[in-house]
């Protein structure tokens, strides 16, 4: 069970949250080509390591949060609100 420190609600169990996917994907500009949109909708880095991702605190503050979480150890490096700028784990760059 993950324990996620919600910036609004404090430490809560994973069951209160809904996973909402990779936070590193960025919507391309409207005039980008089809390949850019295919990559945006479907293709993922799916890293074996640190992952920047969205979680929705469904049974709490009902706010979108962003996390840096490790996909092997499940260690949570940082949690922030959707508009925060998080410090990525060492060696990682935020895209």
């Amino acid at each position, binding site marked *: 069970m993950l324990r996620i420190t919600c910036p609004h609600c404090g430490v809560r169990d994973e069951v209160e949250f809904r996973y909402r996917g990779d936070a590193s994907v960025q919507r391309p500009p409207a005039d980008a080509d089809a390949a850019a949109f295919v990559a945006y*909708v479907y*293709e993922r880095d*799916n890293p074996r390591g640190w992952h920047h*991702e969205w979680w929705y605190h469904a049974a709490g503050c009902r706010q979108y949060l962003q996390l840096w979480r490790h996909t092997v150890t499940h260690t949570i490096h940082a949690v922030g609100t959707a508009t925060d700028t998080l410090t990525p784990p060492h060696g990682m760059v935020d895209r």
Partner: protein
Amino acid sequence: MSVPPRPADARRPHAFRASGRYSALRLLREALGGHQGWRRAWRKAEPRKEYQVVIVGGGGHGLATAYYLANHFGITDVAVVEKGPIGLGNVGRNTTIIRSTYYRPENIRFYDHSLRLWEGLEQELNFNAMVSQRGVVYTYHTDGQRDHMIRRANDMRLAGADCVELDRAALKALIPAISLDSGRFPVLGAFMQPRGGTVRHDAVAWGYARGASEAGVDIIEHCEVTGLRQANGRVTGVETTRGFIGAGTVCLAVAGHSSHLAGMAGIRLPIETHALQAFVSEAIKPFLDVVLMFGAGHFYISQSDKGGMVFGGAIDAHNTYAQRGTQWIAQEVAAEGVALLPALARLRILRQWAGVMDMTMDGTPIISKLPLDGLVMNGGWCYGGFKAIPAGGYTAAHLIAHGEAHPLTAHMDVGRFAAGLTVDEPGTGPFPWAH
């Protein structure tokens, strides 16, 4: 892609003696002789410098692909490289169910072909995989769900698969332990695929390994791929912990690690990796002689020949490569099981584990060339990889040998995402965690 011709001197003599055919007569003879005559079922090989085809991943799909390449497509200059021992990944971690009860007609046809191969598998491999067509039963709990299942059953019949409807009385007669009126989700009826069932999963890995090895395939354990070497837009081999191995064609059959391996060639796949848990209870006397699936949630259960109840549920809903599960999914699976079969509440769970699934963005597998000449993949199996092993192996071998997709897997090309031809099996859109 075209497979380069095989050098005439590529075969190498080896001292390994084949295990011979298994039969009742042989068993009797060995019993009388103190079982001294059994030999190893397959040969542990050392890597050579080069192969016509290198398959990455010694699981069900990798070994099956090698088997069919060598035995049905005449390509025996093949190596299977595996980072650990064979058969310890998802092929040894699943709940062993086989069925063709899919939603999209393309997938029904593919999985029913797989079911037909399962039906002849033990004769094909001369290996007892304990294929047990005990029937797979799905409960439904709402009118809408019934209508959806009728549609699915009709699609299955049109594709040549079998599916029958059971009313409440027939369901209760078939499964006396079922609770039809468990308060919140009363069972309205069920559908059954009589040809569905279970298979002894470990034997699938061993049987294909034996068949492939006897046909000349090198199975190389403890050989982890660390890179994909390429030249002039073409893959030329794999870098491994045991040195470079050259290859005309490289096939990735690495389940949850597909993105990781394809990433070595700079390719991003429409895949996320999620864990799926499985559970086994203590062994009890015969209790359930079908595979039962709970329509009001995500729960499936069968009883192993040893007597343990084998069951599982939904994927863990966040990206993970850890082969362990989260507790709340385990709790949810247990609650669903008790809602369906209340007697399960008295059982203790003996073991729990997880495998990492390559969840595609549309829930349909990927057997396809990748955007690097000579590189193909057999993956994206979501949580349906085990039942697909025979057909997945056969069609991936077809792709490697002929350079084009087998008709049953034409819809599994990775180019379908860019072409707008996704085959949305779960109907959830590009959100793997929602499958």
